[in-house]
């Protein structure tokens, strides 16, 4: 059986703790273990932060709709915003082996999202906004 819950959060950093609580509870409902739940928490935090910073260009400029679908295979988290679209392929991967002086600050959030989740899909439309779908599967 699949259960689905949606909450709308203002695009602000001070709601990140509440967003985390929402997705961690959904992860528990989906039967994810602690490690997988932490991965979901981190991926969603990074994605939400990217929406505030890049899609909306700052805090309090819109909302983020967060849907969690717990199913037999794991958890799907969908974040929808109505800010600017971006090109995920254009974000360079961070060079993790670079020495400290050469480490660049950008790109780490998207890198974490891709590493931590099993499926990541971006969709940008003019009418239904930017939709990021992330799936975390249950451990076999």
């Amino acid at each position, binding site marked *: 059986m699949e259960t689905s819950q949606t909450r709308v959060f203002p695009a602000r*950093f*001070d709601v*990140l*703790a509440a967003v*985390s609580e929402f997705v961690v509870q959904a992860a528990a409902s989906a039967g994810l273990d*602690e*490690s997988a739940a*932490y991965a979901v*928490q*981190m991926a969603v*935090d*990074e994605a939400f*932060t990217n929406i*505030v*910073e890049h899609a909306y260009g700052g805090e309090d400029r819109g909302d983020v709709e967060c849907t969690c679908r717990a199913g037999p295979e794991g958890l799907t988290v969908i974040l929808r915003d109505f800010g600017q679209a971006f090109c995920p392929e254009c974000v360079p991967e*961070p060079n*993790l*082996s670079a020495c*400290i*002086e050469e*480490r660049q*600050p950008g790109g*780490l*959030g998207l*890198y*974490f999202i891709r*590493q*931590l989740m099993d499926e990541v899909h971006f969709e940008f439309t003019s009418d239904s906004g930017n939709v990021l779908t992330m799936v975390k599967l249950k451990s076999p």
Partner: protein
Amino acid sequence: MEVSTKRMKNCSVIEVSGRIDSATAPQLAGALKALTDDGIFKIVLDMNGVEFTSSAGMRVMIDVQKKCNQFGRGDLVLAAVPQRVMEALELGGFDMIFRFFDTPVEAVGSFV
């Protein structure tokens, strides 16, 4: 998130607990900056009570480490890092940039 600073003879210890995310990372950055502004570049970050760290927190740590390495011949070392936070730091390649200690006491001892 809660942050407290203890200034000692050979180094300073910042004890941080709770969540380090984009909302709270500036508070941690402020505590670290207060030390580096005073010329203190040997710093222990006691992470025992940290529940979660996003890349925003990691960026703060890396910025301070750069400053410690460049200006003060110092070091920002991490102590008592919880397992999940450690896994995230490793995923981001931060295990190559910081020294890690099991306890803050051992971390402080490394500066003697």
